[in-house]
């Protein structure tokens, strides 16, 4: 167990290319599942993939940048409705619908530009206000409400079979996670980490903070938009209640926190574990779904803010008794974005000292 965890730690500290490759291989392996699983499990897995991908996206703005977006399901809903309008009203192909979904979501995120110059909580509440506003607007406006003026939702036929949809969602999940991996290791990732820790400091070393917050938000909005657009035909019927439900945002937040906020691995682990819990509880506790989720959010933040991932690294250190890298200090210093030491390896001449 200790060796396995050490291998995981090495992967985390290693180059992003290796991480991306690992994710891609995982994705390929996942594609084999429909060969021996029945439709029920295939559909279930699609839901899990969607949840993980959404959580990973949320994590970029909520965990890494430290700006929790409470209305994030607005991007998912916008994507779904964009797809409905593009595919049903304008009869365009699904691929275009997905691109449109991403574009609409990113464009909407840019509306928040003035909010980024203000304090963090203005952002949080604005996203909630946005969700409420958009949900009402979409629900009441004839153009978006449904195809016929009396409709309360959209029926969006899917051009793909179940198995094909499954593969599509595996692809979307991998794309989301891999793009997050590279984002966190990029110049933008550095900027976000700095401004999460201390905005004044980040600004003083030359980082245009408002701009990078906007970039992070747009980046976190695109994938939910694309995934929402793919989700509409998958579900075949969408309405505002289902697509803009605050539970979707709840899911994103809970999965990220439960798994380990600010990390790449967190949303993945969190999504898997929570889905398992969900499956077990499904039959018995359907009504209490939201209540349990809310309770979990509160308990985790109160007692173990670092989530599963921080627990795992603690375990790894104990098993291997390493004292090299310090244990993550405190909950959301975004400690685990996986950039310990390694970038220093790419120096030229200058340092020259071996570890």
């Amino acid at each position, binding site marked *: 167990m200790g060796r396995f965890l050490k291998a995981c730690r090495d992967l985390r500290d290693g180059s992003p290319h290796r991480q991306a490759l690992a994710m891609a291989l995982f994705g390929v392996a996942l594609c084999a599942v429909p060969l021996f699983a029945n439709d029920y499990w295939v559909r279930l897995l699609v839901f899990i993939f969607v949840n993980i991908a959404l959580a990973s996206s949320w994590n970029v703005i909520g965990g890494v940048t430290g700006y929790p977006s409470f209305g994030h399901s607005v991007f998912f809903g916008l994507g779904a409705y964009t797809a409905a309008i593009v595919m049903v009203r304008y009869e365009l192909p699904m691929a275009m619908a997905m691109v449109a979904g991403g574009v609409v979501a990113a464009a909407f995120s840019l509306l928040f530009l003035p909010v980024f110059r203000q304090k963090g909580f203005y952002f949080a509440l604005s996203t909630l206000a946005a969700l409420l506003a958009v949900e009402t607007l979409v629900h009441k406006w004839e153009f978006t409400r449904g195809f016929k003026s009396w409709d309360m939702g959209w029926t969006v036929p899917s051009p793909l079979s179940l198995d094909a949809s499954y593969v599509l969602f595996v692809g979307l999940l991998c794309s989301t996670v891999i793009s997050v991996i590279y984002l966190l290791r990029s110049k933008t990732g550095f900027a976000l980490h700095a401004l999460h820790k*201390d905005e004044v400091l980040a600004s003083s070393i030359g980082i245009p903070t408002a701009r990078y917050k906007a970039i992070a938000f747009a980046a976190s909005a695109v994938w939910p938009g694309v995934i929402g657009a793919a989700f509409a035909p998958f579900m075949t019927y969408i309405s505002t209640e289902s697509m803009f439900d605050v539970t979707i945002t709840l899911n994103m937040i809970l999965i990220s926190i439960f798994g380990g906020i600010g990390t790449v691995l967190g949303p993945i682990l969190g999504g898997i574990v929570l889905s398992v819990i969900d499956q077990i509880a499904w039959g018995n506790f359907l009504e209490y779904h939201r209540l349990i989720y809310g309770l979990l959010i509160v308990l985790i933040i109160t007692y173990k803010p670092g989530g599963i991932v921080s627990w795992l690294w603690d375990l790894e250190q104990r098993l291997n008794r390493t004292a090299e890298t310090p244990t993550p200090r405190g909950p959301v210093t975004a400690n685990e974005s996986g950039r310990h030491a390694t970038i220093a390896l790419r120096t030229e001449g200058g340092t020259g000292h071996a570890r």
Partner: protein
Amino acid sequence: MHDDVLLKVDGLSKNYGGVFAVRGVSFELRRGEVLGLIGPNGAGKSTLFNLVSGIVPPSDGTIHLEGKPLHRLRPNEVCARGAARTFQSASLLSGMTVWENVHVASLFRPRERQGDMSAEECTNRALALCDLTHAARQPAERLTVSEQKRVEIARALATNPLLIMTDEVLAGLNPAEGEEVLRILRQINGEGISIIFVEHDVRAVVRLCHRVVVLAQGAKLSEGPPDEVVRDPAVIEVYLGSRYASRH
């Protein structure tokens, strides 16, 4: 000796609800110079610092860097123009190594002053100048106070500044460590970077600076070469009380 005016502060004031933290302060920093900024507690040094670095907007007055206005800019724009600063209390990014901490600044150094160096080269150079090359891989949490202070300086250096403002960079250091920092600052100055040296330790100021500005109660009390300022009775009085002033 130094003729070219790099930074010009003119009539700078900051008013907090009727209380002037800084009142009508004017001074110049010349290119290549090390300017000391001293004063007793509450004199307004921190506020002045924050005014110049753009963290706090002034109530009145102007700041010009190379003739261009600096006083209404955001901190990142101030940094981009060439005025870098250090921070007094722990401001290193946890969860990152020393190298990465400095590298963030290199990544965002302004294009006009990038020259031919890549970001990595810039980071390495800054670390070397501050004698931190051996500690590059260490996590930021594990550093000694002396190393932390030097990382602050390295980070400011990595932005390729025209001037660096140091905020009590000697605080908490023993004499040997302080010497080390003074040596580094002299070396940095030798490369053509001007320094505004805000410090409590008057002796260090006298040794390092070409000129000194003394603040008291938000206003400029005295200005001039260090040995003159130190003997100025008004300055002595404000530090040690009138009994000492009358003896000199």
